[in-house]
């Protein structure tokens, strides 16, 4: 009985000593540069939209509601409008509102593509809204967005 108490006591003491140290180490490993950059996000949005008025139709953004692995979040975008040789999607961007670098990626299509669909995997630093913007060859801009909950930061990985 005495031995059991001793083991229990020393285990509790051991974890108490070890845990704060481990926590302090992980905290120092995350640089301060993971903070969101709202100014850059607004600039990226404004640069892409220009003078057009974004339409909330014709663009399908597909991503999970909960990111179980924030260092690889599957995102799928499709322009659902009927496309032709004369009407095609020129450019499509993905923006992660709260990421340190909000412009996640840029897709470009040509008249030879014939479709406008792409998928990639994002790293997300925190729970946020993911935006997709598409520019068509006739100047229309399509917009879609979805909120996503992130379990832990993916950018430091």
């Amino acid at each position, binding site marked *: 009985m005495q031995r059991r108490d001793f083991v229990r006591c020393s285990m509790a003491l051991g974890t108490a000593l070890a845990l704060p140290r481990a926590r302090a180490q992980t905290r120092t490993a995350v640089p301060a540069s993971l903070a969101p950059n709202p100014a850059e996000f607004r600039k990226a949005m404004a640069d892409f939209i220009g003078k057009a008025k974004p339409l909330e139709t014709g663009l399908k953004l597909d991503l999970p509601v909960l990111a179980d692995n924030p260092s690889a979040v599957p995102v799928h975008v499709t322009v659902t409008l009927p496309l032709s040789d004369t009407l095609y999607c020129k450019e499509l961007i993905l923006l992660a509102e709260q990421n340190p670098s909000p412009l996640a990626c840029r897709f470009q299509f040509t008249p030879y593509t014939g479709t406008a669909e792409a998928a990639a995997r994002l*790293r997300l630093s925190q729970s946020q809204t993911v935006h997709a913007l598409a520019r068509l060859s006739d100047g229309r801009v399509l917009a879609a967005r979805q909120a996503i909950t992130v379990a832990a930061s993916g950018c430091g990985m």
Partner: protein
Amino acid sequence: MAVKPPRVWVSSVKPARGEVVRVRAQIEHLMESGLRVDPAGNPRPRNIVRSFEARLGPQLIFRWEPGIGIAQNPYIEFTFLARESGELLMLWTDEANATQEARKTITLS
């Protein structure tokens, strides 16, 4: 850059005219964001894949410019409309100008 060749999957290499062909491709790349530090606390220099291009014969059909918000070992999926036969050439370039490429022959059936 990685030693392993790119992994590429194409829904059909013998599509009918007008069929939508889906391509999935992935390479091994660290996509070092420049935000990480090594154990000594020094930042690791940024090096991400800066462009991916897919051409069918001479025509550019798809281009992708990843940012640092793209996961490591970048995965890309895109579709195109099969209108002519040709070689589908996929080319990845990173910020150190290292390249990787993959080829698939597309023949209209």
